[in-house]
């Protein structure tokens, strides 16, 4: 009897997975671009991969430290049809302008009324994904879905099966965009039901093009929802992208983001992710250094309190010689919060003269806070320089006492030391205005959540 029960548990899809697959089955003929054979195939293959692999569980090696139970426990509904709501406008109004242009998604759908895309310079194209698909998706076949790996990553499979909208950003060869572009994703977070959305961001830079992209995700309400974005970033030879991401989702949100970047020779991908929000967040980044002399850094800072969980996972593959990669994550964890860092550097046999470095530093402000660090090196070339490290500790008692002995109250002394701790991570952000904005967000978090107790 027991054996039968066990067998049936393995073969029947878990309720959450079954619900997602049922959504796909019900929606697949109505999703944007449903009439495009290549896109149907892409979605179908993703749905099959998801059905075969299931949603991640703690038994999945890549998800060992991050339990997606809230995803399994919640039942999600479609976002409702679009009516402008005051909550989104209010959330948007609170957001400092971090770019000259702004594309806004609400619940994963592009909103022209909230976006500001006038006066884009020649060579920079910003387009909503759904309207591009409705219009026949010229040029998207062979671009959309070429980097994401639904067969490997279940959340990317879910996104691929159900993606309806998102933003396409293209920079023409040789065009260096002088001002910043923002993509803002807002969750309306309706209280009556948990919604799920799966936006797709597609960024392609032509040879020697450059762009600073600020990619923000936030929640306008306190209710639970799932934001499951996937970004595909393709950089041609000599291109340069600064990808600054801010995750400030609502307090009950699940934010499960996956970024895939391919970096051609002499190209440069620099990402910095500041994670402040969400009940459970995973920031998973896959970078392939595909051409010689490429550069990537995947940096981040995270702050968590209460029962929150923040997972930063990055996999850097050196598939060409003489490339450099850097991963530096810094986190502050309070109360019973939980941080995860998984950093992997893979060096192919061909990738001689690789220079790789990764570091995770965390400060635990309470004895119940926890961090898991899992650095991994997988090296098949013989002439490489790779190093990694991790430190976990409390705020330094001697430093705190030094500040307090000069009259600085304990709370302020802690705030100063936390700002200083993040300071050298922020140094990695190349743009001074953005550095200041990120620093202000960290200071704001500390004012709201950092106090004792």
């Amino acid at each position, binding site marked *: 009897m027991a054996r039968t029960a066990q067998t049936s548990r393995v073969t029947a899809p878990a309720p959450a997975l079954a619900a997602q697959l049922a959504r796909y089955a019900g929606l697949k003929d109505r999703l944007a671009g449903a009439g495009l054979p290549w896109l149907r195939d892409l979605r179908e293959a993703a749905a099959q991969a998801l059905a075969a692999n299931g949603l991640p569980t703690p038994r999945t090696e890549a998800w060992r430290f991050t339990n997606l139970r809230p995803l399994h426990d919640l039942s999600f509904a479609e976002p409702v049809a679009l009516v402008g709501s005051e909550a989104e406008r209010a959330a948007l109004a609170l957001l400092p302008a971090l770019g000259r242009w702004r594309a806004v998604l609400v619940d994963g759908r592009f909103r022209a009324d909230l976006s500001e895309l006038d006066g884009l310079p020649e060579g920079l194209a910003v387009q909503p994904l759904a309207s591009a698909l409705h219009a026949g998706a010229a040029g998207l076949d062979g671009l959309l879905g070429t980097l994401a790996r639904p067969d490997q990553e279940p959340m990317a499979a879910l996104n691929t099966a159900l993606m309806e909208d998102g933003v396409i950003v293209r920079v023409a060869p040789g065009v260096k965009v002088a001002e910043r572009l923002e993509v803002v994703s807002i969750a309306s977070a309706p209280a009556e039901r948990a919604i799920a959305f799966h936006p797709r961001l597609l960024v392609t830079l032509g040879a020697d093009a450059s762009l600073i992209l600020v990619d923000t995700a936030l929640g306008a309400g306190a209710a639970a929802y799932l934001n499951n974005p996937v970004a595909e970033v393709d950089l041609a030879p000599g291109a340069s992208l600064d990808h600054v991401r801010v995750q400030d989702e609502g307090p009950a949100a699940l934010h499960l983001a996956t970024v895939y970047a391919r970096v051609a020779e002499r190209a440069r991908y620099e990402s910095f992710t500041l994670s402040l929000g969400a009940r459970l967040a995973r920031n998973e980044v896959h970078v392939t250094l595909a051409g010689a002399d490429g550069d990537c850094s995947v940096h981040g800072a995270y702050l968590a309190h209460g029962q929150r969980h923040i997972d930063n996972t990055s996999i850097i593959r050196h598939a060409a010689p003489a490339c450099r990669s850097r991963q530096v994550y810094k986190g502050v964890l309070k109360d019973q919060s939980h941080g995860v860092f998984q950093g992997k550097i893979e060096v192919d046999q061909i990738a001689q003269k690789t220079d790789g470095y990764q570091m995770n530093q965390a400060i635990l402000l309470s004895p119940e806070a926890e961090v898991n660090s899992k650095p991994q090196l997988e090296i098949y070339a013989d002439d490489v320089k790779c190093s990694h490290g991790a430190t976990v500790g409390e705020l330094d*008692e*001697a*430093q705190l*006492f*030094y*500040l*307090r*002995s*000069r*009259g*600085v*109250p*304990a709370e*302020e*002394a802690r705030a*100063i*030391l936390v*700002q*200083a*701790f993040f*300071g*050298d991570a922020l140094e990695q952000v190349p743009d001074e205005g953005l550095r200041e904005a990120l620093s202000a967000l960290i200071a704001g978090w500390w004012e709201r959540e950092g106090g004792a107790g």
Partner: protein
Amino acid sequence: MLEIKGLKAKVEGKEILHGIDLAVPAGEVHAIMGPNGSGKSTLGYVLAGREGYEVTDGQALFKGRDILALEPEERAAAGLFLAFQYPVELPGVTNATFLKSALNAVRKARGEGELDAMQFLKRVRGIMKSLGMAEDMLKRGVNVGFSGGEKKRNEILQMAVLEPRLAVLDETDSGLDIDAMRIVADGVNALRGPGRAMLVITHYQRLLDYIVPDRVHVLMGGRIVRSGGPELARELEQKGYGSLPAAA
């Protein structure tokens, strides 16, 4: 100004100070001398309120009020300053941020208005100049990459900016060459005055050639074993601590 009565303190469960009695009147500079391990630095940390330094008995009255129950920042606001033997490095915190946060916190606690960036700079610049400190030191991380002499000067800068009523200088001469010591001593002497008292903790007599104390106390084995005038320091220099009876 400062009156210590029967002060006993433990560190990691072990009693280090076995009952200190000491009075430093306003306007005076007292020196505490003693060999290594006699409890000199412990006395400084106990007065400043460092965690892990447990007072088991006695009082430390500062301007008539027992400060031993106060938080370190409250002691600083009341006018106590400890110049550290080993100044702490604060990577990522600039000297300017550090000094300004300290000064404004202390001013606020004292009911004085906070200084803006311009007022602050004006005040700090003059002091830095007199201490022979380059202005770019304000932009550097606190004590990060500083030489021993720079760190000690930085302590004196903080003291001059915060204008304490009672300054405890813990081995401020250690690691200094003669030129640096003269600059540090000048900085200290500039702050001597009728409204201020100082306690200069040192192992060697040489600092006391530059900062001439009104009284000298010898701390050995966690007790004051002898007190006298400035001549006591010279006597110790000649005869060594071995000439004194070890504390029982």
